[in-house]
């Protein structure tokens, strides 16, 4: 008899399943540059179960009881919502004063919060954890007005964190442009490769000595040819890989990048390829493009504005590379006649490039545990 205690319970519960509305909170977020305004409606019943509102335990929640618990309500809610703009945490604070709103299934507390982000962001990541520890069927229903459009989202115990892109093309452009530029600046291998590759445009190793470029014009023309070849090749594989048209194994790509760094370094010390250097630049551009596409894939392309994002990322990558070239080439050009510059900067620098390339190659191709300072 005892083991059938749940009988009526189970049989009955079918036809009447979900006859009530389940627990929801309504989160309305409006973004205006770096400021965020939040209206958060949370059911009084839910707050009562979570933190206790019915002070006199008479089964009725009065406005006086709600007001008394204002600090507790604000602290409870604030601790369960995190917003980050462009991966940087925004500060959230509840405004003093609560309000009440009528919903289809009862009254809710309306909490107003103000947020301040470090920058006017174009990507927001929202981390929502209200009530999930108590009620696994609770959902947070989000309405986000941001960048000229309104987006909605649902937070659930298995979907606590969600990221939203600005629907505005300029916002997408800015985000992906910065990500592209940032990726190049962070990637020591790409930087070293470029420094090594562009060196011969101003100074060439010839029969035991260095031969300076005759004029700035020649140097610039050679540089431009290299940059163009490298960039075009680079953009081609980046676009192909990012669009999913092909996906080369990352170990192979990363090893080839390392090999290209080693080659660029060696080629300056012991010249192997001197003519039609742009062909070499183009070939290595293909490899580096495929490598950088990996970062873009990790970042993900937005559903809307894929082309804009891809273009922005590419332009970010190219401009960062050009910025490096714009520093390296004139510097080397200026110091091309100075023996001190060559012996103290150029030769050791080129050696470092070659050694780093070798180390990376061993590390990536053979899995050797080599520690590098960058």
């Amino acid at each position, binding site marked *: 008899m005892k083991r059938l205690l749940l009988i009526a319970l189970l049989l009955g519960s079918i036809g009447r399943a979900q006859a009530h509305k389940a627990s929801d909170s309504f989160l309305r977020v409006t973004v205006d540059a770096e400021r965020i305004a939040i209206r958060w409606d949370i059911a009084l019943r839910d707050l009562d179960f979570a933190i206790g509102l019915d002070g006199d335990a008479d089964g009725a929640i009065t406005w006086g009881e709600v007001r008394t618990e204002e600090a507790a309500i604000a602290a409870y809610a604030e601790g369960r919502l995190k917003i980050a703009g462009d991966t940087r945490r925004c500060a959230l604070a509840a405004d003093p004063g609560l*309000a009440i709103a009528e919903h289809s299934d009862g009254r809710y507390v309306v909490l107003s919060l103000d947020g301040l982000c470090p920058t006017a962001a174009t990507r927001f990541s929202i981390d929502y954890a209200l009530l999930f520890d108590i009620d696994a069927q609770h959902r947070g229903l989000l309405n986000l007005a941001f960048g000229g459009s309104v987006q909605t989202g649902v937070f659930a115990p298995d979907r606590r964190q969600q990221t939203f892109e600005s629907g505005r093309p300029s916002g997408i452009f800015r985000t992906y442009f910065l990500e592209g530029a940032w990726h190049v600046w962070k990637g020591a291998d790409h930087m070293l490769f470029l420094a090594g590759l562009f060196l011969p445009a101003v100074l060439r190793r010839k029969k035991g000595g260095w031969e300076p470029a005759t004029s700035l014009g020649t140097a610039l023309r050679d540089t431009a040819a290299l940059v163009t070849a490298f960039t075009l090749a680079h953009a081609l594989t980046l676009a192909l890989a990012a669009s999913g048209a092909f996906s080369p194994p990352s170990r192979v790509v990363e090893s080839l990048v390392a090999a290209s760094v080693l080659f660029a370094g060696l080629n300056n010390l012991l010249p192997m390829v001197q003519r039609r250097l742009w062909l070499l630049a183009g070939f290595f551009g293909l490899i580096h493009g495929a490598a950088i596409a990996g970062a873009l894939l990790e970042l993900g392309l937005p559903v809307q504005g894929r082309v804009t994002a891809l273009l922005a990322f590419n332009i970010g990558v190219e401009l960062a590379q050009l910025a490096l070239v714009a520093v390296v080439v004139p510097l080397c050009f200026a110091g091309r006649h100075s023996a001190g510059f060559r012996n103290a900067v150029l030769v050791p620098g080129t050696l470092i490039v070659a050694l780093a390339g070798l180390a990376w190659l061993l590390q990536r191709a053979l899995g050797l545990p080599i520690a590098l300072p960058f």
Partner: protein
Amino acid sequence: MPRTSAVVAALLLLAAPAFAASEPYVPTDDGAVLERVAPRAAEAAALRALNAQRRVLARHPDDLSQAIAYARKAIELGRAEADPRYHGYAESALAPWLALGDPPPTVRLLRATLRQQRHDFTGALADLDALIGSHPDDLQARLTRATVLMVQGRPAEALADCNALLNARSNLLAAAVCVTSVRSLDGHAAAATQALSAALDESPASTPGERIWALTALAEMLTRQGQPAAAETRFRAALALLAASGEHDPYLLTAWADFLLAGHRAAEALAITRDQTRIDNLLLRHALAQSALGDPGLADSLAQLDARFTEAGLRGDSAVHLREEALFTLKLKRDPARALDFAMRNWQSQREPADARLLLETALAAQQAAAVQPVLDWMTRTGIEDAELHALAAKLKAGSR
């Protein structure tokens, strides 16, 4: 610039798919009652006890036996109040074990119950099959599986589990409800009705809850056989027991309201649903009664129902409300074409007589006789006796000729 963006923000809010809520306001009276913890005192007390148990559990979240005790109590309350919040409480407490591929048997049974409540019938059956496979004498699992199979319109498969209950001789009334519920759907309605009546007479020691459940099942069987007077006697007996026990039973109230509405007794239906509108099913019956009576409160009920269905859709819970949404769309929104879509999708998961009736009625209103072929096939396959179902089917056949 700040002014422009403020204007844009205001416009955005207007353009947004607004959540159905009033404008926020600040009450002026501290004594104003904003909400009841629970509509009935008994539920409020049970809820307080549950909350105390939760706080103890929160200090020992890995204590399986405490988590099970809490989850059982929560599920029981969820059934009594038809409130999915309680099922959510149970799910949270059991979370560490629910995630296991092979959880302890007790947790597995509760997981099946929770899955069934979310209308994940396939998931529930997988759990129950595994449980019964390793413990064929688990009567609770047998009864739950029989119920899920009946909801899916598979009475023939449910019979084996009901027979296992009968052979165990542990609870005659429960076994009787199980067996007769199956046989009332497969062409043995008269015998099933008699048998359940007899079982009720022979189980004077059964609990009020079990009797209410058996009487409701009996009343529904009698209604299907076109015996409203006999059905009403059983409904009233169940309601009297309910009133005496102080329990709450939304399922009984919904069935009773449907009975009254079908008998063109909208005023009575209105009266019994008036204080129950927190429950979606009963709010829907309340609105149906208001509609039949031309009651001015209808507009407000419709707005509330609209909001609840919209919010369920936003949550991603639409599948759970298909039966109600079909009924709402057919009878109150009077949009048979859309209602037919809901009713057909509902038939994919739920196949009780009420679901069949709904699909036939909707197809008739939408003049889409072809849509009901699966229901007609099901009626032939099961041999179900249901006066209204057969009348509807005859009308549809006449119309398509």
